[in-house]
């Protein structure tokens, strides 16, 4: 179980990062107003300085444009990609792959997690195999998957599904196992039937843990999508990066990297928003309390 614990810890740690309040703490909010105005400006200082140095370096040709293109060139390329529709084409392809793979991974992951969580017997049968499979990093399966599946769409779906399946299954299992005892005791006192117990107590109490798994799974899905596309694809954002690299058009590489970052951010924040909406009925979910 050490592996399961670890992966859970990882997943919760990742999610906890986003739950760290960014608002000033109570004692600080009394501070003078101009600090509140200054704060976001400070965060912009480093990017702006970097951009300035970068553009000066590019203009004076301290480094050849094949090594570091000017920021203006990157921006131009990005606009051009948007205008020509190439960007949306590749973006759409990448997004479609993640959608199918992630949906598959979630479905199988939740099913596996629920089955193992509800029945010790099922866990006995499946957990060792599951643990062994999840020990191999997603990338470790890639060459094998390429041999068996070729480099078509099914390869991408399988790799992405696998990447998201593991954290989703582990968190679902963990979530079911850590339903507070007193909830179950109350349900027993009310003489809930088994189906009632599951529907009214176990599943609602498990949803937050499942969401931790989903968010972590989505991050993993996006990461492995980019990797698969770098290695074996002729379309998609990852391919754009490789293509730009081969042509030594670093402006294309950099603009694709920016898009990869923005999409990663939007996917994570989007799921966080869905999570918040679905968990509105809960007063507060103590992330740290569910684990141990």
């Amino acid at each position, binding site marked *: 179980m050490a592996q399961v614990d670890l992966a859970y810890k*990882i997943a919760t740690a990742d999610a906890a*990062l986003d739950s760290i309040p960014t608002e000033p703490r109570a004692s600080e909010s009394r501070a003078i107003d101009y600090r509140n105005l200054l704060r976001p400006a*400070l965060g912009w200082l480093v990017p702006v300085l970097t951009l300035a140095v970068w553009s000066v370096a590019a203009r004076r040709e301290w480094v050849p444009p094949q090594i570091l293109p000017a920021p203006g060139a990157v921006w131009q390329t990005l606009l051009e990609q948007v205008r020509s529709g190439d960007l949306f084409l590749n973006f759409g392809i990448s997004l479609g792959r993640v959608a199918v793979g992630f949906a598959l991974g979630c479905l199988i992951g939740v099913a596996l997690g629920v089955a193992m969580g509800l029945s010790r017997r099922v866990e006995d049968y499946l957990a060792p*195999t599951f643990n062994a499979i999840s020990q191999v*990093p997603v990338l*470790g399966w*890639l060459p094998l998957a390429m041999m068996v599946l070729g480099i078509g769409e099914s390869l991408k779906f399988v790799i992405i599904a696998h990447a998201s399946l593991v954290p989703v299954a582990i968190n679902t299992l963990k979530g079911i196992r850590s339903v507070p005892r007193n909830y179950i005791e109350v349900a027993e006192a009310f003489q809930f039937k088994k189906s009632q117990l599951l529907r009214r107590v176990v599943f609602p109490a498990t949803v937050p843990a499942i969401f931790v798994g989903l968010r972590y799974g989505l991050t993993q899905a996006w990461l492995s999508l980019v990797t698969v596309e770098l*290695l074996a694809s002729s379309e998609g954002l990852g391919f754009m990066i490789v293509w730009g690299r081969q042509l030594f058009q670093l402006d294309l590489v950099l603009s694709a990297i920016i898009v990869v970052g923005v999409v990663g951010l939007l996917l994570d924040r989007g799921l966080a928003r869905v999570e918040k909406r679905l968990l509105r009925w809960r007063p507060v979910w103590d992330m740290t309390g569910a684990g141990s």
Partner: protein
Amino acid sequence: MSASAASSAASLSTARFLRGLVVPLIALLAWELITHYKLANVHLLASPSAVLKNLTFQIEEGELFSQLLASLRRDLTGFLLGSFAGVLFGSALGLWRIADRLLGPSFDAAKQVAVFAWIPLISVWFGNAEPAKIVFIALAAFYPVVVNVHEGIRSVSREHVEVARAFRFSRLQTFKKLILPAALPSIFSGLHLALIYSWLGTLGAEYLLAPAPGIGNLMIEGRESLAMDKVLLGVILAGLVGFSLNSVATRAESYFLRWRVRNA
């Protein structure tokens, strides 16, 4: 009484162990049968016995060992560099508010990019050989360490800081007696994650950058020459290394954090 309870517990755990073997054995049997009766493209699918034979052959040749060693060396060098830089950067963000304000947003933005997307850029700046691989592995290890060190330092409770202030702790004392112990569990989580990510990064770097001895390379080579036994060997090794790194990290974590009081 206690003896019989112990023996029944033992037989229960044996039963659980045996149940765990059912699925792998069925899969292995199916695999052997498929290759034996040529139900699939045997050219591609090597039988388990062929994989085993190749394994012993490679071990005798000593080639496997050197490949493994090359990957591990790469992995650990990158891990050490990345986590060292990560501890420094994360501490700076955690200890100095101004550093956090200045660099935090930029770091958060850079973190959003899936780390493998940097590989093509790294290959332009650092070449295709060993240095580029190590830079990439270090980058993969860097992010989780920064995030966790930062978070650990910020998790120090206000009350404790106030107590330290009341006792007129010096800056060094506050750091040694308060911040470090409070942040340590989180720092270890970060290092643990970094170990996992750097192994993932090692495989990725070996796939995507210039070929050189290593487990990832073994697999890519095997795929290109359609030698599935080689690829499978690589998968197993990748898993074993991941597993070993994991258990070492877990051990080290519980050893160094053994002073921690378990709160119920």
